[in-house]
């Protein structure tokens, strides 16, 4: 069986990169005494996969990983064992046992929700967002592995709204199309001509598609 696990990467750990996070999680799993599965080969490591790597500098409120197990167990027992082995800034929140044939979370991922907590909200931002979204096309230049690429952001924006001091964004995140929150903010502030305030961006949820609607990935 395998467990689909929701965990948090607290703000303190935002400077930790994906590989470091992966190693920390593997060591926690080793401490937990859970019945884990290992890779074959010269340097066997614990089998474990994350739905989507988090970039350096970004906390994650509901991150998702998949942990294959060599024995059946309940989600409660799993959570209890893992929780006792995790450091304070990396708590696990939920777990759900699924069949080995259950598709990997990574394969079901289609979008993510981000919240940008801004130090100061420039006047007129709400109106600017409305105008920004009213565009038919939002041309931008995206950095990819194979260099700079022109793209249209508009279809990758599912939602963009301002409440309190927080800008909430739901953006495409899957193999076919990914819009990074930073790129969106660049584009929005360039379009509006407003000064871009410092902001801490947190990824608050990962989403998948069910019956044409976006739902929390862990529920799929």
């Amino acid at each position, binding site marked *: 069986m395998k467990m689909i696990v929701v965990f948090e990467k607290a703000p*303190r*750990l935002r*400077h*930790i990169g994906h590989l*470091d*996070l992966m190693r*920390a999680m*593997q*060591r*926690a*799993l*080793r*401490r*937990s*005494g859970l019945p884990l599965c*290992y890779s074959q080969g*010269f*340097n*066997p*490591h614990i089998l474990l996969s994350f739905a989507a790597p988090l970039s350096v*500098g970004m906390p994650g409120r509901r991150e998702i990983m998949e942990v294959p197990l060599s024995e059946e167990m309940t989600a409660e027992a799993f959570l209890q064992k893992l929780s006792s*082995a*995790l*450091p*304070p*800034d990396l708590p696990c929140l939920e777990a759900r046992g699924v069949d080995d044939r259950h598709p990997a979370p990574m394969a079901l991922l289609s979008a993510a929700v981000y919240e940008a907590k801004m130090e100061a909200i420039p006047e007129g931002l709400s109106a600017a967002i409305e105008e920004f979204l009213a565009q038919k096309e939002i041309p931008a230049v995206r950095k990819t592995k194979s260099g700079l690429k022109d793209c249209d952001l508009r279809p990758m924006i599912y939602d963009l709204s301002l409440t309190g001091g927080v800008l909430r964004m739901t953006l495409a995140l899957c193999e076919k199309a990914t819009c990074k929150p930073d790129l969106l903010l660049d584009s929005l502030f360039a379009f509006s001509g407003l000064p871009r305030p*410092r902001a801490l961006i947190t990824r608050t949820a990962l989403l998948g598609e069910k019956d044409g609607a976006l739902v929390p990935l862990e529920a799929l």
Partner: protein
Amino acid sequence: MNDTENARLERLLEEVQKPARYIGGEMNATVKPWDSVKTHFAFCFPDTYEIGMSHLGMKILYYLINGRPDAVCERVFMPGADMADRMREESLPLFGLESRHALSEYEIVGFTLQYEMSYTNILEMLDLGHIAVFAKDRAEADPIVVAGGPCAFNPEPLTPFVDAFMIGDGEDVMHELIDVIRDGRAEGLSRKEIFRSLARLEGVYVPSLYDVSYNGDGTLKSFAPNDPVAPASVKKRVVKDLSAAVYPEAIPVPYTEIVHDRMVLEIMRGCTRGCRFCQAGMLYRPVRERSMERLMELADKLQQSTGYEEMSLSSLSSGDFTCLPQLIQALMDRYREKRVSVSLPSMRIDSIVKQSLEETQQVKRSGLTLAPEAGTQRLRDVINKGVTEEDLIRSVTDAFECGWSSVKLYFMMGLPTETDEDLQGIGHLAKKVVDAYYALPKEQRSKNGVKVTASASVFVPKPFTPFQWAAQDTIDQVHEKQAKLRQYLKIKCVNFNWHESQLSMLEACVSRGDRRMGDVIYAAWKRGCRLDSWNEYFKFDQWLGAFEDCGLTPDFYAYRERPYEELLPWQFIDAGVSQEYLRKENEKAKAAQTTRDCRRGCNGCGLHTWGVCDWVKHPPLKDTDKTSAPLFD
């Protein structure tokens, strides 16, 4: 730190390189509410996080202090240059990783001294921590600054900055020191009175209670206590029973990569070999082993508390551990299921390892590093490195048969009595190692092809070694020899690495320096020196300027052979190994005479009178008992 300072620090972390160095919060980091304890100890490692977090001594003392209900120990590392500069600009103090208190808020600020060329970092850290750099400038309520570790055996260069030194093994004296400071503070004693109480502890040196004077030629004239409580000679502390000593059962597991990211079992302390250049070999006498039972118990606890996938065994000469084969076997049996690998820094590729390599892949196949140290048998006899060419060739042949294909060879240049022949010998040895590879049948050797890396460091004479009186080669001599070695090592499949001679020269000055060297360190720091062991920050010309500022020369400290009659700055420290013994060993070195391994009979190094060395009464090993060559680095 208050809230606004905290917020400013968080912003700073967005700007600097490697911010993960500064976040703390690791698994097993000990956080205690600040007001729940009386004594706050800031354990300072005068180098960056990646280096300090790899250090075993720090882990032992961190665990030991935090084991006390009345104290907390927090970690402080030298920030990177960018962070240090930005902290100054923002006037943010250097802080403990656990609770982010400013360094100046701890009752005790303790530095571990592992390397002389990190001393400018100590000044930088005190200054960043808003603590007066000079001990004499500290106010009554300021932290008490202490230091320990191997370099504390010559404390003199740091005396202007450190209030008290701990000499020798830290486990016991640390508790006594904390008790004295805690009680002294509770009773409202003055700093001076607390220092006087500290001076009464065995193994503690309080420099302000001693006076020195110099001869006209700059040599030391006198060194004596100026207070009746201070002993004329400070005796190093020795932990007699290593199995009973505190050892960490949990250690902080870093989030970010560090130099040695694994759990470490210290199997043994000390070494019986008696290599004459090796300071650690003399300082950490006598040899003490941890019992198998204790090691297995610690291994289990560490594995469970850290989740590390790799375990390494540590000591000066692991091959000499009595039950090494049994220990390795037991560890591998225990951790096969958990996929924990065992790596041996002093790798001995004899039957047991060979066999387990074939059975499993649990022994880490790290690079093979051998340290013949010198190129000819004559010079190896001078330094008492009991290794022959035959040992070396047998070891590398074994390794090649096991699939190794790259070998590192460590040498020293500038050893006493060295001639051109000895340098040529380095070339010959390297060539023979390559030949040993090609001597194997094709199907037995690795397909990668052989790669030999010969590294030659510059010999630095150290206190408490038989070579403590020796002159170091001048920088020009070193350059000449390096050029020759480059010629001698123009061999197919052999690479040559050499070390920075300027840094070694300064290391020689500081390690055998007197109190005036403290002025040089201060002047160098004032001129912007810090992180000296980092190539990109090393400023040799500023160091030379610092010597000039103080009216001193490096030649006096590094290049001068000192006569036996000269009073040495560190002579008041009793390291157990007697000055007579060191002198005798130095004379034997000049005659290229070797001294036996103590396990073949006590050599009367001085410690035999202390009642702490088990090998004094131990039946000596017989000639037929195999002891592996101390080859592995």
